[in-house]
């Protein structure tokens, strides 16, 4: 990719206080939701942010839009550091960066017609008087909905159609960046495909940059140009989509890819035998393990010598190029066929 990135995230940290149970509600600790995440996103590009529940992928998405201001670190959008801009400037910037949420049932006001919902951002930013109902009809058509249905209410639409309304709202201010937070997870598969195709078409037509947050690796492989894998608040591996899926080097990425069953019975009979099943669960993010955060579940860790393990326990691995063609945060990274 050429030129300067549209979005640049550096050392992003987001901690949430854990309150004590007593009367004083003193802060008893910190949940380390995101711990030092850095990445770039270019115009027209899709970066997939994947990981399991609680890995911090959604928090990262929201911190990028300054919806939840980060504890520390920098989010630079088109050369402007969001941590330093004033409220008025932030309001103007918000038009250029939008978000689409997971649950199309919760993100629309049930008492507002679909046209009103799509017109709302235009009214807020005071452009409805110039653009008016025509722009709303155009937006509905853009997302594959019948503009004649604009006077209906959200409950008259299916989940897939509601998600299209959410996308139309996000498009209203002609943004350059859209954070898609699990945009198709709540939809049935036959519906999901239409929304994925729509997102691809919109990117091509409008040159949008997507930060695609999802737990479904199959969807991410299909839509993303680059992928970052997160575990317990850190990026453990990042690279071009094909490269990452075909030659994963981090033991967590390898286990994640191996754990997903493919809709292909013949292939699956072979894969089931070779499956890497990692034990246990994601540790408590209020007290993450020292050193490498994945070591408590790492299948590779158990095969290391005592001296090698000490490194994992004492030193958190940096996300760095280690001769695998893309950065990986593991002291003993080793490429494997995906």
């Amino acid at each position: 990719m050429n030129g300067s990135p549209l979005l640049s995230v550096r050392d992003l940290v987001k901690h949430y206080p854990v309150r004590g149970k007593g009367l004083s509600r003193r802060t008893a600790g910190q949940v380390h939701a995101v711990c030092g995440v850095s990445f770039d996103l270019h115009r027209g590009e899709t970066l997939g942010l994947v990981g399991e529940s609680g890995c911090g992928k959604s928090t990262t998405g929201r911190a990028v839009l300054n919806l939840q201001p980060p504890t520390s670190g920098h989010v630079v959008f088109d050369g402007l550091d969001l941590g330093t801009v004033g409220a008025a400037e932030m309001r103007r910037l918000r038009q250029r960066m939008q978000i689409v949420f997971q649950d199309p049932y919760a993100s629309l006001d049930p008492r507002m017609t679909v046209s009103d919902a799509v017109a709302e951002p235009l009214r807020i930013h005071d452009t409805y008087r110039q653009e008016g109902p025509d722009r709303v009809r155009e937006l509905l058509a853009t997302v594959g909905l019948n503009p004649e249905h604009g006077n209906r209410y959200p409950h008259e639409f299916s989940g897939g159609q509601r998600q299209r309304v959410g996308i139309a709202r996000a498009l209203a201010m002609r943004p350059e960046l859209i954070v898609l937070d699990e945009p198709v997870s709540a939809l049935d598969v036959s519906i999901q495909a239409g929304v994925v195709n729509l997102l691809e078409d919109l990117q091509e037509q409008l040159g949008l940059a997507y930060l695609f947050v999802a737990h479904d690796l199959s969807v991410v492989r299909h839509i993303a140009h680059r992928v970052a894998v997160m575990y317990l608040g850190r990026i453990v591996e990042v690279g071009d989509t094909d490269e990452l899926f075909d030659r994963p080097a981090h033991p967590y990425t390898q286990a994640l890819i191996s754990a997903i069953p493919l809709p292909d019975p013949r292939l699956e009979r072979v894969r089931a035998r070779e499956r890497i099943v990692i034990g246990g669960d994601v540790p408590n993010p209020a007290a993450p393990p020292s050193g490498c955060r994945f070591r408590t579940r790492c299948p590779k860790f158990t095969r290391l010598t005592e001296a090698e393990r000490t490194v994992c326990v004492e030193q958190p691995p940096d996300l760095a190029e280690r001769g695998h063609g893309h950065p990986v945060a593991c002291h003993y990274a080793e490429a494997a066929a995906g």
Partner: protein
Amino acid sequence: MTREIVLEVEDLTVSFPTEDGLVRAVRGVSYTLRRGEVLGIVGESGSGKSVTSMAVMGLLPGSAKVGGSVRFRGQELVGAPDKELRTIRGGRIAMVFQDPMTSLNPVYPVGDQIAEAVRAHNDVSAAAARERAIELLAIMQIPRPRERARDYPHEFSGGMRQRVVIATAMANDPDVIIADEPTTALDVTVQAQVLRALETARAATDAAMVLITHDLGVVAGTADRVLVMYAGRPVELGDVDSIYYEPRMPYTLGLIGSLPRLDDARRGERLVPITGSPPSLLDLPPGCPFGPRCPMRQEVCESAEPELLAASAPDHLAACHFSADLEGRRPEDVFALTSADHPGGAR
């Protein structure tokens, strides 16, 4: 080798009276299940896959109208008195539900709950039941099972809780295990653990298993045969390879085409969506329920609902008037590669 038939479901129907009219949730499901066999039931939300299994277990509320026949090793279950069902439920037929937190009682230690299931169906002492519970937890690879048996459900993680439920399900050496979306709320690495635990339980008891899921990947790796449901109807039934490689019902073909693939099998290709959404079960169209979304529909599809008939092989059944026309066709040959949600809609 043909093994004993343990479960026979014949023309099962379920409807629920509501204020708006009769909801016909299941319309004529039939299947047989042999010992040791795994049947996958797939379908989207509202296709009737879960209601079918609740009806098999006799777990539906009294207002539900259940018709047809369910025979467990020859014994009729539909309309059987609760006392009779109670000896079968949890004993001969066990069930694993989606959310382990709602199947476990939060105020009792898990060991007690497994022991309770053991004692409900066997005349054994409390101490013997407790030993059996610990043994079952060990089979499910719960570390330090003797200590963990004293812990409460909230002290376990989601994946471990589901393994406790599976331990309870296998407690009485059942003949049939019905697993209803057992991995749906779980992360993929935990899903892999739970699927492995289910296979362990099935192998240890030599039970037949019904695996209900919306995930075609989970079914591909687990099931011997697959039943595809749409709008309360079985629309295709066959061995797992025929369903995935030679689907003869446009809906099944469409489902496969709409899936993005993790491997590179369809790299760079567009996904093939099915436009529209499933019909309301309140007023179903007279013909094929998939008709309004089907690109192959013709006049007959609007008037006559197709029967489930032999397709590519005698034991591969499909409910489509034109199933023969699907031979060798790919999803993208049949469905339009659109991103719009209504036919002929603006892009």
